[in-house]
């Protein structure tokens, strides 16, 4: 039986949501292809995580541990994952399109000389092969592709596939892994400017643009985001003006996001911004200009002064 292998990303012994999402996708594909679903964990002190993966459909969990792997170590992870794919003879490998996945997946692909599709938003079985959709030009268009190697590697965008429970009695296999020579050495993980939610991981995003007029006014965005448990984003105009840090920028030269709810405040909707957020499930636009392009893609719009609308929202939520 062929195998589908899901790399279950964890940091600090905490599994990423995308690991469960990818297991749910893997479960679907394994049913269609008659394949076995296997999860792979890499790190240190991670054996306790296996059970959670079983809840989402993994029949087998391979926990690869080594003292040197407290933090993500690029070559170490790549060697262990590539070796595991080979040992299991897996035909499909699914990873998250996270910062770790985007670093790791091409390394594993190079080691296996396999094709890799990054940042996928749809993966289906069609005539026994995978039909994959990935946005290009930051989402202005989408490419439907297929991979022509025996082993097919994918990174799937977080928040696209729902995490669905499919409890299985899981066998957890612990492996003492050999990370080989680590050349790119990760020495430390530092928290960002605040211990805040990243836009790529958030279910709700509140973004502010030039309409805020002054960097001090971004407390409105922060307060609304707080009320909703949302991450804070920004348009390129706000970042270029030096009002916000680059890590918040959503758009073609920033981050591409797909949250359930995206609230654009004082953002007119330049084409490069729309490219980065138009795949959000619901979009709310608040802008004083009824002709602003953002209203063309918004599900719900309020035409008006954001300095009146946003405080009212904060008050009511």
């Amino acid at each position, binding site marked *: 039986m062929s195998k589908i292998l899901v790399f279950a990303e964890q940091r600090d012994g905490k599994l990423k949501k995308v690991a469960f999402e990818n297991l749910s996708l893997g479960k679907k594909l394994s049913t269609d292809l008659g394949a076995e679903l296997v999860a792979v964990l890499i790190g240190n002190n991670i054996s306790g995580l296996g059970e959670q993966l079983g809840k989402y459909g993994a029949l087998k969990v391979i926990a690869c541990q080594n003292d040197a792997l407290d933090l993500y170590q690029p070559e170490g992870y790549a060697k262990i994952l590539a070796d595991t794919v080979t040992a299991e003879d897996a035909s499909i490998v699914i990873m998250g399109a996270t910062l770790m996945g985007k670093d790791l*997946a091409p390394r594993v692909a*190079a080691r296996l000389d396999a094709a*890799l599709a990054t940042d996928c938003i749809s993966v289906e079985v069609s005539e026994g092969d995978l*039909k994959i959709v990935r946005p290009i*030009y930051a*989402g202005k268009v989408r490419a*439907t592709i297929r991979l022509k190697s025996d082993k097919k590697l994918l990174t799937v965008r977080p928040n696209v596939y729902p995490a669905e429970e499919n409890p299985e009695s899981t066998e957890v296999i612990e492996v003492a892994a050999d990370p080989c020579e680590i050349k790119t050495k990760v020495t430390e993980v530092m928290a960002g400017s605040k211990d805040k939610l990243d836009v790529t991981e958030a279910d709700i995003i509140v973004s502010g643009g030039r309409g805020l007029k002054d960097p001090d006014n971004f407390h409105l965005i922060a307060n609304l985001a707080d009320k909703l448990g949302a991450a804070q984003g920004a348009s390129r105009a706000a970042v270029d003006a030096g009002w916000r840090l680059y890590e918040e920028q959503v758009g073609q*030269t920033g981050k591409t996001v797909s949250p359930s709810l995206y609230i654009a405040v004082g953002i007119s909707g330049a084409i490069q911004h729309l490219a980065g957020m138009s795949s959000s499930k619901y979009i709310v636009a608040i802008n004083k200009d009824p002709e602003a392009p953002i209203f063309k893609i918004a599900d719900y719009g309020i*035409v008006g002064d954001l300095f009146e609308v946003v405080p009212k929202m904060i008050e009511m*939520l």
Partner: protein
Amino acid sequence: MNIAVCIKQVPDTETKVRVSGDKKWIEEGEINFILNPYDELAVEEGLKIAEAHSGEVTVLSLGPDRITSAIRSALAMGANKAIHIKTDKNPLDPMATAEALAQVLREGNYDLILLGKQAIDDDHQQIGPILSEKLGIPAANVVTKLEVSADKITAERQIEGGFEKIECALPAIVTTQRGLNEPRYASLKGIMAAKKIQIEEKIVTVPDDKIEILEINYPPEKPPGKIVGEGADAVPELIRLLKEEAKVIS
């Protein structure tokens, strides 16, 4: 210090991308091509490091004849040399592109290889880590802070909600992310000087693509949204819709 910067020419961010008639690619006719914004950061960083460590910057780019304008942009910023990599076929799979780049990079004995974290056209974001494996040297990817000494680098790489600090020996690869620097504008003198630099051409055979594009499409059109109302008076209705219709907040 011998520094290589790999660059790509891409459509500018204001481009309205149009799918070609056969749906296999995009219409290139009216596109304004630019130097990939992330690669601009790589050129700037290379120039800064070359200035501090008395080095030389070579830009490398793979693609059709039109890419010489992007190469000239990098030379106008101050790069010293350029190599235009010409191939028997135009690779669409980053694994094939990386293989072609690796062949040329191996000949150059570079101490540091810089490139943007991704190209803003096909968005694969694969070349940096693949080159790391193919060349057998470390790579710090998506870097927003970089310190280079004679034999090693220290870098900060962006991750969700924070940064990873990376140390590695030279030779090494660094892929650049916004926040690292502010790319300089080319001076008139730089533009004139760049015109005099001979772009070296290298012909490389690339392996076959393992990614096949079946079709390019526009994203599905969203049904027209609704204007809930004007001003703060519309807020109660908006919140009701988000709770009851969209069910995205509780």
